[in-house]
């Protein structure tokens, strides 16, 4: 019976143990490397809500008007020297057409006198002088008239040009106004941010129980991370005031002050997400 009871030697006890260990090692390796155990802070979605869409496009429309503006500005320098202008406005645009007229007119003035002189020399030398003078007078008058007409024309053109320019100026001004309005809005936002930062600081200050009798005016600087509701996610002491009592008093006050006042406009929240606060011991 004893012999039979011993039966046979069980095979593979040790290999089985080794295999079992191996299975567990593989399992844990899979758990460690197969799964991504690290969590990354969720990328904060920044959504800007625009109440009026065109804002980003405005710069483009503003940019387009300028191109026409430079063109009229160039002509004036060429024109200025020619006509004696009663008006001072600096941009009196005189395109090339005006120039040509000017050049053509002087020519007839030279030609006519020369013809007359030739005739007078041939036919009447002395008598003709009077006629000549008369004619000259007439011509002068004519010339003057022509000049006047021309001047009037030029004036009209100038006026039209000026009007156009004024229009353009107005347009530019409008653009400027818009820009200014934008800047004003921004500064208003800035004001709001500053206002709420002051409010936050005031609320925190209301909760500080100041440790008595600290020398000087120590400043504690804190980095505060906020949640959209005004709740406090994290407070870090960035620069100690040198007095632990004051630092901890301020830190406690920051937590007591929650929820911190935030502007109602959620678009402004990103400015408040990471606040850096400076708290002075004395004002």
């Amino acid at each position, binding site marked *: 019976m004893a*012999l*039979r*009871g*011993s*039966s*046979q*030697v*069980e*095979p*593979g*006890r040790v*290999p*089985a*143990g080794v*295999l*079992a*260990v191996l*299975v*567990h090692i593989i*399992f844990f390796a899979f*758990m*460690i490397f197969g*799964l991504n*155990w*690290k*969590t*990354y*802070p969720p990328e904060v979605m920044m959504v800007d809500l625009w109440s009026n869409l065109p804002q980003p496009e405005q710069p483009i429309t503003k940019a387009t008007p300028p191109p026409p503006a430079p063109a009229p500005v160039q002509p004036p320098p060429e024109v200025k020297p020619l006509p004696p202008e009663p008006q001072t406005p600096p941009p009196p645009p005189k395109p090339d057409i005006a120039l040509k007229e000017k050049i053509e007119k002087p020519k007839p003035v030279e030609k006519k006198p020369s013809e007359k002189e030739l005739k007078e020399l041939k036919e009447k030398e002395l008598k003709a002088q009077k006629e000549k003078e008369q004619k000259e007078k007439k011509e002068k008058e004519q010339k003057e008239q022509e000049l006047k007409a021309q001047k009037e024309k030029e004036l009209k053109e100038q006026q039209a040009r000026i009007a156009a320019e004024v229009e353009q100026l107005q347009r530019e001004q409008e653009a400027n106004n818009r820009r200014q309005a934008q800047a004003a809005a921004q500064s208003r936002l800035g004001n709001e941010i500053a206002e709420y930062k002051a409010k936050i600081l005031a609320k925190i200050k209301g909760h500080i129980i100041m440790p008595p009798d600290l020398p000087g005016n120590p400043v504690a600087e804190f980095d505060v991370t906020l949640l959209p509701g005004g*709740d*406090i*996610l*994290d*407070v870090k002491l960035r620069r100690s005031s040198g007095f632990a009592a004051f630092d901890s008093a301020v830190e406690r006050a920051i*937590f007591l002050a929650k929820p911190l006042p935030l502007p109602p406009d959620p678009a402004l929240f990103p400015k408040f997400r990471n606040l850096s606060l400076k708290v002075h011991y004395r004002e």
Partner: protein
Amino acid sequence: MSATVTQDMSMFHLIGSASLPVQLVMALLLVTSFLSWWFIFRKLFVIRQAMRQSDEFENVFWKGPDLNALYQSAASSRHTAGSMERIFEAGFREFIKHKRQPGMDISTVMDGTRRAMRATYQREMDSLESHLSFLATVGSVSPYVGLFGTVWGIMNSFRGLSNVTQATIAHVAPGIAEALIATAMGLFAAIPAVIAYNRYANNIDRLATRFESFMEELSNVLQRQATG
């Protein structure tokens, strides 16, 4: 309040920060899982060997060699012989013993032989089936043990939540994650154990049928020899 947004979620950190009962459950499950895998591999080897040896012995037996010679070789290699060979050896020894005594009725001889074979058969089945119940237990219980660890861990993490005015999922998530590791370990121990148990039980059943039919056939052969 120094809770940073990024939590260290490495598994070892989670296990290390778990509460003591959860850690105990995890340790228990780890040991159980190791033991069950150990038995799984041991049984695998044992059953494979038993099947291979039975095949070999049946091959030799049905080639019709001298039964006395077969018995001699089986008796000499008792410690390396397979189950079937040992059943044959026990039966044949009993048969020879009875045959030597004069005046024995043939039915008495056959009864004794059959009893001897059955005793060996039962011993062999017992050794084949050993530890199978452990696998069955692991398969059915370890999920509950893991679940217990998980429930405990989740209870703890929710209790911690009661002190927080603004409850966020970030407060409970690490606790639940670490608690769920216990369930994972329980399942990891249970699933292979159940599979192995079912497979081995089936294999052993088939071996048992083979042994039984062999016993019947052998007793026929021996009876023919006794009368013939």
